[in-house]
């Protein structure tokens, strides 16, 4: 199996990695770049724990080959806070108590960040729809939904 050299931007940094054809972006992030914040929950596109933002849109990184990411701009959980300052959605999810075991949290935050980037005032239904691909077994979702609403409000107020 051939090895491909790919170059892409991850959290604002230019990276270059050598990957086999069948390596997923999730594996490349975790095993080649030691960015272990993105989690592996199923490797089948069902649980959303591996969600990252690629070229502005959220994807399941277990469902894309690393070789398909040549030239892409990727944001992972490690890049969400800027210079130590938490993103509003990171702050509101803490305040609302929407974090328990924390394993789904990186994926939830990336999906939520992407939602707020495309919809500054999402309704309850829109938030549920946007997060339906992020499974959580601990929180029961309501505090997460409230946190997204809080973050949206905060961002509208500061805009």
């Amino acid at each position, binding site marked *: *199996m*051939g090895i*491909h050299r790919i170059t892409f931007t991850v959290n604002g940094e230019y990276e270059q990695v050598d990957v*086999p*054809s*069948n390596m*997923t972006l999730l594996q490349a992030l975790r095993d080649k770049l030691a960015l272990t914040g993105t989690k592996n929950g199923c*490797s*089948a*596109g069902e649980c*959303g724990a591996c*969600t990252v933002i*690629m070229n502005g*849109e*959220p*994807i*399941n990184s277990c*469902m*894309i*080959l690393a*070789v*398909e990411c040549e030239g892409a701009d990727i944001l992972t959980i490690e890049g969400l806070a800027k210079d130590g300052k938490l993103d509003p959605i990171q702050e509101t999810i803490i305040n609302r108590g929407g974090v328990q075991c924390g394993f789904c949290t990186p994926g939830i935050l990336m*999906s939520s960040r*992407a*939602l707020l980037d495309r919809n500054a005032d999402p309704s309850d239904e829109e938030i*549920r*729809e*946007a997060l*339906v*691909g*992020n499974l959580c077994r601990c929180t029961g979702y309501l505090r997460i939904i409230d946190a997204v609403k809080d973050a949206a409000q905060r961002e509208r107020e500061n805009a």
Partner: protein
Amino acid sequence: MSINPHPELPVFEYVHPVSLEEASQFLANHAGEARPLCGGTDIFVRMRDGHWNDKYLVDIKALDGTQEIKFDPQNGLFIGSAVNMNRVIRDPNVISHYPLVAEAARTVASYQLRTRATIVGNICNASPAGDTIGACIVLNGRLKVHGTDGFRWVPLAGFFTGPGKTSLKPGDIVTGIELPLPPKSAAGKYIKLGRNQLSDLSIVGVTVLGYPDESLVSGYRFKIALASVAPVPLVSLKAETRLGEGPINPAVLEEAAQLAESEATPIDDVRGSARYRKSMVRNLTYKALWMVWEKIGHLVN
């Protein structure tokens, strides 16, 4: 048959041709061991599960025409095969002229998966459960296919030959789907029954399109496509015929729904039983017909 505890992507080569000719030639030369790759949402799942074992995945996302979504009143809407479902859902022309396609696409999986999933991929995967296939069928979609002898158009009628099987030949790459302008005053509805409120594969899916048509006695034509109740996406011809025969009222809608139920041939599987699916075909077809009728029923006297 026991469980595979370790499904994983097998060894394969990722190939990135620069032209349609090169791509079709490569696929034809490696018939049976190469496959076009678009969003991968079906391919990766099938490969992990060991159903597909292709040696080559041929990425077609950068090939001519696959990334465009364009509309003109003459030819209608063209959705390139690499256009992801989220792009389709928010496209202004889709929203204005083909809301049924957006409605159906919105029910697929999750937002993250729709960043990768494509309408054409949904069609080519040819699962009877495909959510957007019904909309494309009732809207008379045709596929633009590039093969070793160049381009051709393939209507969706007759395209599906069995579960997961289509009439495509080695070397064929679908570059997009064209949906003609819908008939005047058409209204549509897609109802999907899954286990969860959202997400999930369909236990039963019902697509209905209705529009005034003076060539029929009833004054209206209905198109009905059913998901997950037959080996292929099923068009309910008996129900469609009944709805053209005479004046339409709730009793006639109920009759049509029962005809749809009789035409469906679902099986028992892990998602639901045949018996339940039959009842759901009837109930949800009635509901979808009723919702469409509410929108168009006043148009013809």
